[in-house]
């Protein structure tokens, strides 16, 4: 290559780089900053559903009917170590220590073992799958046996799961277990067989105080969106960036 040619190709290169660069700058001006990686896309069409869940800790009275109904509705083994949803009793004592209990997931009700004069604050926290849209369990599944549906529900394909338990390890919220009868991973399906027929989930159905709210995050008029507007809602373990779609009102910092 002669010097002249080199100069030519260099000019060409600079020109190209300038166009690409300016293109990048202009497009970044017009498209808002959006760095959602590893995520299932929320439907842009407002008529499409994007399921989410709300929990009002202030309303939960710890009756455990939700955990009980869930086991019946979804035919979950009755043993006290398989739960799709359960309730925890948090007791923060005056000395700052935290006591957490969940005997049989709350199905048999709760007793407060700490004497009232020692209690600084006490409340119930219902738990269930957070149906994360950057879900670590879906990311971890080696075969594609767990997935996020287009309407934002994390589910397990029990005919395809190999039972490696990697998803159980990957869930930061302890929401998965191995079904002892089927030997596959099992978890809350957000009662997909109910919500897809226009019914609500079993846990929401039986909650006597309406502490649990199921809703469509894509619908500005849904009860869930209304709940989120009227309350300061947080998700569990936000630092893990799981994209949880389970929003808690009155969530204390002690809750993990």
């Amino acid at each position: 290559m002669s010097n002249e040619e080199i100069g030519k190709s260099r000019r060409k290169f600079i020109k190209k780089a300038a166009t690409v660069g300016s293109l990048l700058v202009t497009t970044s001006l017009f498209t808002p900053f959006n760095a959602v990686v590893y995520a299932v896309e929320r439907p842009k069409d407002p008529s499409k559903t994007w399921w989410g869940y709300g929990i009002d800790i202030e309303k939960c009275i710890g009756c455990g009917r939700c955990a009980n109904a869930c086991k019946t509705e979804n035919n979950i083994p009755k043993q006290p170590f398989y739960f799709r949803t359960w309730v925890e009793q948090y007791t923060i004592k005056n000395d700052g220590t935290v006591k957490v209990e969940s005997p049989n997931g709350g199905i048999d009700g709760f007793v407060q073992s700490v004497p009232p004069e020692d209690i600084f604050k006490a409340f119930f926290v219902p738990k269930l799958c957070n149906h994360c849209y950057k879900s670590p369990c879906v990311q971890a599944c080696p075969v594609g046996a767990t997935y996020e549906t287009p309407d934002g529900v994390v589910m397990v394909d029990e005919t395809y799961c190999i039972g490696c338990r990697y998803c159980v390890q990957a869930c930061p919220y302890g929401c998965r277990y191995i079904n002892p009868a089927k030997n596959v991973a099992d978890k809350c399906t957000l009662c997909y067989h109910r919500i897809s027929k226009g019914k609500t989930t079993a846990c929401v159905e039986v909650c006597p105080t309406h502490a649990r709210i199921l809703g469509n995050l894509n619908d500005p008029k849904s009860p869930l969106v209304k709940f989120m507007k009227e309350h300061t809602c947080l998700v569990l373990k936000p630092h893990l960036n799981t994209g949880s779609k389970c929003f808690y009102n009155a969530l204390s910092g002690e809750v993990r």
Partner: protein
Amino acid sequence: MEQNFQHLYDMLSQVQGFIYPNELDLQWGLLIVLYPYITGLVAGAFILASLERVFNVKVLGPTYQLALLTALAFLLVATMPLVSHLGHPERFYEILMTPHSTSAMAIFGFVYLWYLMVVLLLEIWFDYRQDIVIWSKETKGFKGRIYKILTLGVTDLSPSTIKWDDKIGYFITVVGIPSAFMLHGYVGFIFGSIKANPWWSTVLMPVIFLFSAMVSGIALVLFIYMAVSFFRKQKIDMPALDSIAKFLFYILVIDFTMEGLDQIHRIYEAEESFEILFLLVHGPLFLTLFVFQIFLGTVVPLISLGTLQLYKPSEKIRKIIYLSCSLLVLFGIFFMRWNVVIGGQLFSKSFYGFTGYKLHLLGSEGFLFSIIWVIIPFFILAFLLWLLPPWKKVGQHENN
């Protein structure tokens, strides 16, 4: 189904503090402890072999083939603990058919196949091809027939073809080193990438796994070399043994530094999970971490092997030290895997309590069933040494 949860009722009494109810069932038991352990032995043994061939450490010559065959013997069973612990072992093929690109576990099947088919089998084949051809002509009966099949019909023994054996074999070893690094670094990534678990989730995990793999693999070859020489009533090549021990010492230093760095970083940063991890290492893991892994498995071998770098006692004493150090290191690295796998599941992800783990003697996750996967490789190795005895080899690769 009854047996599937009967033991969990006994576990209920062992829970300390609060755990999420689903966490009572500890998902990965002894079989998954063995999986990184065995894979690590493979990677370590292979890297020792490549030291001789690629890095031209000629003094290790007597152990080259032995290290390769050891790697193969263990690699052949490496997936077995993994498959046998699955809820549905018969669906294992799915991991090869529809591997999920975002899953750290999904690619293992391919990494494994690559390492087995492209690296280890080929390297051994090229190294032994000349001998297999000769043996296939000399040996009769069943063994001769195996040799005939193993030649794959390539019986050409012209100098140019033999030169090719050497050249390709060398090339595969060069490719094999990053592959061995990948094989085990990747196993570390399976744990290190779980952000839900602060005991696992560290960028150093693949590095730690890699170096501990090398340590354990080298110790295994050291042990097997001494054992094989003993059974064959052959004199041990002391320079080879000394330099294996030297490498074991160096890598043990790096391994210990890396693990120390990881723990110091963890202690100094003292994040949200610090308190529960502090309780973990001082409670349920105290014996297996401080006594087995760190003291017996690391400090004692470090001091004794380190002393030998400065002061050389008689051969007999050195042999005893090497033998005990290799066994201690193998013991220590086993508990390193144990502390990672079991330790990472003992504490609740709520950081408010612990579940328990009880090793059962029987059952699919039990001790007896698991120990099979450690014993079988030695039988495979015995078979391989019968089939491809390194001491009867005629062809020797040139050191390029």
